[in-house]
């Protein structure tokens, strides 16, 4: 024990057949920002959903240990009550509710008296949310929606904040604002686990990174190490590698000879 979030040997399957995560293990230390990167379909989103308990009856195998609790296969409400908040790729907002109502729901079940201060902190972080307080969430722009989602998650005072592709579809300027806010939130003691395709952006704020491919961790290291690694580019683009011409590849067919 002693560690914050430990995932060991987790298998997640879709439709009980397709391995999305295959014997995946990783560790997240308290108070830092962790980034998970990798190509499309590598299982990044699946990993976060597995931790959040949003996949029914998954993971099939393995242990997810959070602060000494085994949280694998618990109901999402229960996992959330341990202090894990997940912001999905589509932001998971209540689109028909107003900005204020969305933020209110973030405070669900909080009994400490600091709600008001925290709300003010969120408004300080993203002043636009104060301006748009009475608007329905669906009328916000993509960036504002992401800010709202992060603000709402922050109000739950999570120990672990998980975000799925927070930069997706955002203009670079907006993405920077969002990421700066994440750094500030992390500075207040929240651990952040971040899934990102935009590796450069992610490595700028992350302390440590994992690269996921085919449901496994293929590379890990501190942000500095990963930035230096030439393989990172190759993993995304398939540039380089075995230096053969694209056309002259060996025709291949597995023949069964029995």
């Amino acid at each position, binding site marked *: 024990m002693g560690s914050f979030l430990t995932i060991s040997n987790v298998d997640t399957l879709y439709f009980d057949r397709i391995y999305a995560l295959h014997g995946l293990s990783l560790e997240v230390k308290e108070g830092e920002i962790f980034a998970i990167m990798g190509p499309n379909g590598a299982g990044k989103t699946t990993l976060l959903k597995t931790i959040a308990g949003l996949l029914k009856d998954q993971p099939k195998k393995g242990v997810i240990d959070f602060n000494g609790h085994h949280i694998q296969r618990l109901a999402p409400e229960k996992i959330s009550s341990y202090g894990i908040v997940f912001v999905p790729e589509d932001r998971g907002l209540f689109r028909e509710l107003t900005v204020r109502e969305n933020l209110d729901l973030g405070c669900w079940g909080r009994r400490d008296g600091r709600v008001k201060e925290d709300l003010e902190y969120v408004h300080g972080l993203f002043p636009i949310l104060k301006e748009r307080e009475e608007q329905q969430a669906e009328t916000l722009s993509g960036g504002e929606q992401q800010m709202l989602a992060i603000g709402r998650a922050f109000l739950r005072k999570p120990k672990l904040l998980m975000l799925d592709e927070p930069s997706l579809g955002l203009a670079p300027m907006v993405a920077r604002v969002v990421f700066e806010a994440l750094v500030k939130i992390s500075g207040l003691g929240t651990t952040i686990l971040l899934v990102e395709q935009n590796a*450069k952006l992610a490595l700028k704020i992350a302390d440590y990174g994992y690269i996921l491919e085919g449901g496994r961790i293929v590379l890990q290291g501190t942000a500095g190490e990963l930035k230096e690694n030439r393989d990172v*580019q190759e993993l*995304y*683009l398939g540039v380089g590698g075995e230096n053969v011409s*694209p056309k002259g590849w060996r025709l291949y067919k597995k023949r069964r000879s029995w």
Partner: protein
Amino acid sequence: MLEIKNLSIDFGGIRALSGVDLTVRENEILSIIGPNGSGKTTMFNCLTGIYRPGSGEMRFRGESLLGLSPDRIARRGIARTFQNLRLFMNMSVLDNLMLGRHIHFRKNIAAAFLRLRREELRHREKVEEIIDFLDLQAYRKARVADCPYGVQKRIEMGRALALEPRLLLLDEPISGLTAEEKEEAAYRIMEIRGRYKVAIMLVEHDLKIASRLADAMIAFSYGQKIASGLPEDVQRNEEVIRAYVGDE
């Protein structure tokens, strides 16, 4: 053979495709790459009549595809596979492939009532050919839902082939497969082009394989075409690298 000009489509104010131009020549394999949400699948959906494009023109072998329903487009000779597998899960593998032959059946409902099966036999031979080609013999009578994922991918490809298309749209045909299956699938895609004389449009994330297969490549980002040309060139294009790895 396929010509798309200035194709645009909006979803609730968000431009999913804007001003896309592209052409596919006979018997060519064209790869389309791009990050998530860049509009690749949306274009397939426009091409097969599932979405109505807001503006632009699509011409297939000289005739416009605009405003045609999906089944009419299929009859023109365009078949496709889907990203998340849209098979008929409760039918047998054989029936799935036979449904692919649907447009070629001489329809006679009286014969259906009376169990006159001449047509059935005629098409069965074609289907068996595809079963052989795709190595599906062992699964012929199995319910699709019971087949492993890799096999389901093959079945879907087989179903599209059974339609005898002139243009085949493959939406991530090798995603989710194991490394070994990927090689095999890539080989089959090459074979299909040779054997069935079709043009293939292909959306794929595994860029290594996509570029090996393709004669030409197109890259999308935010609903726009950002690069096109030979696979090697597109892969090294600055803008493409930025779209994938992210910018500073």
